[in-house]
């Protein structure tokens, strides 16, 4: 009986595994087909020959390089800013003593409950008023920090014994020296996790850039992809190639850092 259960469950798992991975495989394969192959009935699984030219066509039809550079720049800046601001804030909350600390903590936790979608439109308003639409600033500004990561890092730092800070203070280190030489090296795993997850989330962002940019010069990869899709109508093979382009960098990062990424999400239920 147990063997049957095991067999069935493994079958179940394999089936669902295929269902999960297949779209990615097909994305890559479909992006290498000709239009006819991509829309053939019955569907083609493996193209006759790999149409690398599709990628060239995609780059010709839409400035994907520009999109890529924009996304890289915005994601890097956002990640750096978020990691730093969250780290400093978490340092203050976890290590220093000051009045009203509890007020700040409680305030932050209650703010966590506000759905991003409710403030996104008013932020658009703010950015518009400042005349910052269609700029890198607009894409970066609202995301200079993350309340969630402040909360996450504060908890993480709290688990690092206070005596390290006290020892450093007695040794004569200033706060910045402590942060640079002791805190950051000791919290590397958490910082790596926060950094990578912020980067991925920034890379995949969609709604906000949709609101504040429509100039191709500042468009991000995800939005560029969706614009390309609507513009290219029925060129499915090109769309799939463009989609592959979009997810490729992240998939690469994922395969290199998947342990850190999975561990970071699993430990704290971080939702990007």
């Amino acid at each position: 009986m147990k063997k049957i259960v095991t067999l069935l469950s493994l079958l179940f798992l394999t089936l669902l595994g295929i269902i999960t991975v297949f779209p990615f495989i097909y994305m890559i394969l479909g992006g290498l087909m000709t239009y006819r192959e991509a829309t053939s009935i019955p569907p083609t699984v493996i193209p006759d020959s790999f149409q690398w030219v599709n990628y060239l066509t995609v780059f010709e039809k839409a400035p994907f390089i520009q999109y890529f550079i924009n996304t890289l720049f915005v994601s890097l800046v956002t990640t750096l800013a978020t990691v730093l601001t969250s780290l400093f804030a978490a340092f203050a909350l976890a290590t220093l003593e000051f009045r009203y600390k509890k007020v700040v903590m409680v305030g932050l936790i209650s703010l966590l409950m506000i759905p991003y979608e409710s403030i996104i439109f008013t932020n658009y308003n703010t950015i518009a008023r400042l005349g910052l639409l269609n700029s890198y600033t607009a894409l970066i500004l609202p995301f200079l920090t993350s309340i969630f990561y402040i909360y996450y890092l504060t908890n993480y730092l709290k688990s690092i014994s206070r005596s390290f800070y006290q020892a450093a203070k007695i040794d004569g280190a200033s706060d910045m020296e402590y942060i640079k030489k002791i805190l950051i090296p000791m919290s590397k795993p958490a910082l790596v996790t926060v950094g990578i997850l912020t980067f991925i989330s920034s890379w995949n962002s969609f709604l906000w850039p949709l609101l504040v940019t429509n100039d191709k010069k500042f468009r991000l990869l995800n939005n560029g992809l969706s614009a390309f899709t609507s513009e290219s109508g029925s060129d499915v093979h090109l769309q799939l190639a463009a989609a592959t382009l979009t997810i490729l960098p992240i998939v690469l990062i994922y395969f290199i850092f998947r342990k850190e990424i999975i561990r970071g999400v699993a430990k704290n239920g971080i939702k990007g």
Partner: protein
Amino acid sequence: MGKKNYNSENQLKAWYFLLPALLAIFVFNIYPLFRAFFMSFQKGTLINPRFAGVENYQRLLSDPVFFRALKNTAFYSFTVVPIALILSLAIAWVIFEKVKYKSFFEAIFFMPYITSTIAIGIVFRYFFNGSYGLINYLLEFFGLPRVNWLDSVSMSMPTLILFGIWTSLAFNIIILLAGFRNIEKEHYKIAKMFGANEWEIFVKITLPQLLPTLTFLLTVNLIGAFKIYTQVYALFGGQAGIAKSAMTAVFYIYDKFHVAGRPGLAMAATLVLFLLILSITFFQQLILKKVGRKG
């Protein structure tokens, strides 16, 4: 020895470290909230607002499209979340109990979480295509009728739900696997000594220990499902389904704000949505507490 004004228990320099973050939070998290509330009582354009009292709310509550949006959103949420959770639990269980190379499967099942929804949407559009899509081909292959997944008013929501389930599995599985790992092995050893079989172990030991994890997932997933937007956009190429048949709450808000140019109405809808999410979460916590007590 330098005499300064040092107090180990009230270190004012803490505020310097908090300043950058607090500033950003105030401008982009706190202020917008109040502004949204304020704006919901205004009409006109962004540049030219006029006070409108509760007119926006009245308009909202008499708009059939809004109700359809809410209905769809609720239908989506209450279907996708439980199904995805149960499926994820099954998958996580198999990975944890029956498989040797756990991290391999974990890595595979996590992929949908890190990839852009838009990109995945393109593939799914491709799969679900009425004429050349793989899914219809497979259905025909097994002797089943073809389905008009993407262009039929009645099929929009089901297709969206399938897509939603597929994208929801990844996060759930990872969190559940972590939950499984946290259960102390001693519990299993003792149960096996008493001769319990797998199903009994699962129901009597695993499930109760996973309850906090499941609660957490239920809450997070529900909240996320109610805010669904990108999946709709991705699956239906920017539309809310054919003839707006897959209109959801955030889609409605976006529409009113950016397309129809009626920010006040959008803000009112936002607030209604926010309150809805809040009450559902609250309600759900209550029910789960009762279940927890009984169990």
